[in-house]
């Protein structure tokens, strides 16, 4: 179990940095262990600094930067162990237009090995999807499905 955890950790470390630099077009990111010599007991710390800034702790990141950093961690894990499917509920809401586009491009790349279901109000994310389902309540309180073909 120990060797397995260490190997996974190394993979996630590399994956996180790779995805972070893609989403932030540069910058520095790192996963560090602290608090104990034994990797199975240690705390997992995340350090992230967008390009050109001199930040240290992730508490100083902005709302959008935090969303991108957490997304980089998630997709870094998927590089090591792809999940069969993934549901993302309005996680593009805090992102500006440029970051939404980078996020969608990455979603498309990962959708080769993972099925994504994305809930969004953002038009750019809708355009990036392969198919669209509309959920409406023509009668109040009763949800119906409307398939909006998009191709």
């Amino acid at each position, binding site marked *: *179990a120990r060797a*397995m*955890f260490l*190997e*996974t*950790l190394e993979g*996630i470390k590399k994956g996180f940095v790779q995805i972070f630099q893609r989403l932030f077009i540069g910058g520095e990111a790192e996963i560090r262990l602290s608090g104990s010599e034994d990797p199975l007991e240690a*705390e*997992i*710390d*995340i350090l992230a600094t967008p390009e050109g800034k001199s930040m240290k702790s*992730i*508490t100083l*990141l902005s709302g959008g930067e*935090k*969303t991108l*950093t*957490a997304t980089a*961690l*998630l997709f870094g*894990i998927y590089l*090591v*162990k*792809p*999940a*069969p*499917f993934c*549901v*993302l*509920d*309005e*996680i593009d*809401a*805090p992102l500006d237009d440029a970051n939404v586009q980078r996020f969608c491009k990455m*979603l498309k790349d990962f*959708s080769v090995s993972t*099925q*994504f*279901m*994305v*809930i*969004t109000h953002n038009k750019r994310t*809708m355009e*990036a*999807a*392969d*198919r*669209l*389902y*509309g*959920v*409406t*309540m023509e009668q*109040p*309180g*009763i*949800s*119906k*499905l409307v398939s*909006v073909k998009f191709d």
Partner: protein
Amino acid sequence: MYLSRLEIFGFKSFPQKITIEAGSGVTAIVGPNGCGKTNVVDAIRWCLGEQSTKTLRSEKMEDVIFNGTKGEKPLSMAEVSLIFSNEDGQLAVEYNEVSITRRLFRSGESEYLMNNRTCRLKDITDLFLNTGLGADSYSMIEPKMIETILSEDRTIRRSLFEEAA
């Protein structure tokens, strides 16, 4: 193995059966506020065995059964099915298609089914072991979770890493 479709009937705001074809790539779900999009996410979590009413935004498990509106009567059962294609044989069953179903009756009785035969929740969790799929897996993300993944309380991060190992 991939998800081919999702069927919801009587769960939360879906009194009439709906089917969502998953397909490959990215499927977007859109619509006005309060019309039932996040209820679809709750349906998936529930079908995979979610036990926490708080995660399902309910006070008691019965709240997931369609509760009626001004015009419609409440239903007495909620049922959600996830149908997977298993042509690659990743799931350790000899079928090409595997469906898992969860049902709850107002009486409190609940059941799980695999390919329409009743089974235990443990059979379902065993089936998906090591695939990265599960009610509490890191594959269902909402904005509130962004705070927890990066938060000071490192236990959540640790469980993310351990799950991947």
